[in-house]
């Protein structure tokens, strides 16, 4: 418990640092983005939009520390400013409406890839040198070495355009209102298949290889021989003795993957026009929507920290040796 509290303290500190950086960076940026954006939109900006930008870049005349206090206060009250491209929607609302989709897509792909990859790795290592072990690792590494966008476009063309099995874009059919009814959930699921599957296809190989290699090293440990001498069933030895120990590095990788769920799905969301954070970030960059970008960066940092914190807790549960008193 104390370990968790100590970690929590560390993560709060890291979060504070990231908020501060997020506050300082635009203010120290050279040049004057406001006038640049103003020139680009050729006077098409509302006065409120200008005021929003000036506030963001610290062009209001208050001293820096006063602005900082206001900024931190607004972050903790969820006020991240107003989006420029989707004026006058607040940034927090834009992110909030899309974070769910990103999390759904990223988490689904990550969990499926990790579970399937680890299981394949366990079996391959246990039947080392067998047919399964000779076929799967090279095949999956081959698939995984394709450039992701190429594979995604190919899948979209084949399964979406030519065969018409899956929808081409968006997260659910137009005309449906989001809610917990069968029709909407089915629609969301069919829209999820292609983007998630392509991510799984390119990542599952590395999960499998990682697990296979750790598992082979673990299988040589004395406690595995001991378990065999005890006459335990092969499945118990495989899972409770070998895989349970070999899983630990995979958990670390899972944590890293979880952190990148929000920030890493950009390519997927762009190819499949999936309405998530990555898709929105691209739009924000193209539209020079600084408040939205800032908000998204903050969200990504927060999720990375949160994911790491969760994995820390999980790791303590899984490996008794890290529970220090």
């Amino acid at each position, binding site marked *: 418990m104390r370990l968790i509290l100590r970690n929590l303290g560390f993560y709060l500190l890291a979060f504070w640092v990231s908020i501060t950086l997020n506050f300082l960076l635009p203010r120290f940026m050279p040049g004057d983005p406001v006038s640049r954006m103003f020139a680009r939109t050729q006077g098409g900006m509302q006065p409120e939009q200008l005021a929003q930008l000036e506030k963001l870049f610290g062009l209001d005349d208050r001293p820096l520390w006063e602005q900082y206090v206001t900024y931190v206060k607004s972050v903790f009250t969820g006020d991240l400013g107003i989006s420029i491209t989707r004026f006058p929607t607040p940034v927090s609302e834009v992110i909030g409406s899309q974070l769910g989709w990103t999390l759904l897509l990223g988490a689904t792909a990550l969990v499926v890839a990790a579970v399937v990859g680890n299981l394949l790795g366990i079996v391959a290592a246990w039947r080392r040198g067998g047919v399964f072990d000779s076929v799967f690792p090279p095949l999956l590494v081959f698939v995984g070495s394709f450039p992701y966008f190429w594979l995604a476009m190919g899948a979209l063309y084949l399964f979406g355009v030519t065969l018409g099995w899956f929808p081409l874009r968006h997260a659910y059919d137009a005309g449906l209102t989001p809610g917990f009814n069968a029709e909407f959930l089915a629609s969301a699921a069919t829209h999820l298949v292609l983007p998630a599957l392509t991510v799984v296809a390119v990542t599952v190989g590395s999960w499998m290889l990682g697990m296979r290699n750790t598992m082979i090293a673990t299988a040589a440990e004395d406690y595995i021989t001991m378990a065999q*001498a*005890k006459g335990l069933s092969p499945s118990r030895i495989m899972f409770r003795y070998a895989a349970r120990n070999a899983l630990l590095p995979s958990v670390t990788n899972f944590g890293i993957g979880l952190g990148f769920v929000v920030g890493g799905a950009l390519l997927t969301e762009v190819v499949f026009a999936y309405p998530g954070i990555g898709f929105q970030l691209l739009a924000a960059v193209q539209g020079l929507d600084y408040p939205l970008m800032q908000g998204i960066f903050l969200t990504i940092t927060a999720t990375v920290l949160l994911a790491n914190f969760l994995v820390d807790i999980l790791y303590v549960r899984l490996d*008794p040796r890290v529970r220090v008193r």
Partner: protein
Amino acid sequence: MDSARDEPVLDVRGLRVEYRGDGRSVVGADDVSFSIGAGEVFGLAGESGCGKSTIANAVMRLLKPPAEITAGSIRFQGRDVLALDGRELRAFRWREIAMVFQSAMNSLNPVLTIGEQIGDIFTTHEKLKKRAARERAGELLELVGIDPGRLKAYPHQLSGGMRQRVVIAMAVALRPRLLIMDEPTTALDVVVQQEIMAQIRDLQRELGFSILFITHDMSLMVELSDRMGVMYGGRIVELANAKDLFAKPLHPYTEALMNAFPPLTGPRRELTGLFDAPRTADSCGFHVRCPDDRSDCSANIPDLREVAPGRWVAQSAQGAP
């Protein structure tokens, strides 16, 4: 009844184990024969790499490729161990023969509690429920003098001596007829070593199992064993009653091995090393330093011959020790 008592618990005949590599094979054990009677402690001594552990693993059928049993038989109470199929083998292991491994430090799974690791013996072999298995595990810990409250402890929370005692408790869990101990005290200091040995002796007196005791420490072995064999280069070179063997070793290797442990008292003597030539196809490797004239056996280690009732030594037909 009497005939059953006379029948050896374990009978190994002409056992040969080879480690097969690409186009080359190394003989780990060759033509090894010995038997262990009911309640008997049989010691197997020899330097590292002489094939002691290979024998132990062969008896439990724990050898992994590239190791392979290529000749000989292993019978346990009349049953052919080498003929057991997967299911029979799992039921046979631990119930009939249990084993304490060389590195007790590493023979416990770091992520399971002691209780779970003792308990799964009972859930597997006796189909006990978890709760009942836990109770039995607690009784076992008490048997080796550990507080049953430590059932919830993980291996890293125990000292080396405690871990070894946990492993010993696990080994006697199902009251096996034979216990194999592969250098059970190597990683422990002398004091703990004595405690563990005393514990093993007590348990053996109480439960009456036979022991196959493996070590390179001759003095430790003589203390515990009834009979013992000395191994060299994958072969048994001398086999006799432990006290006789210790009092008057007949094979020069046995003598050299005994001299490798300097006595604490008595006059200073120069230590003689064991051997200094690699064992190859045409040299046993030991004859270079062989004290007696054994030129007749230099090419190969000869078969065992019975020189007196119960005393076997590896020597050629005409050679006198």
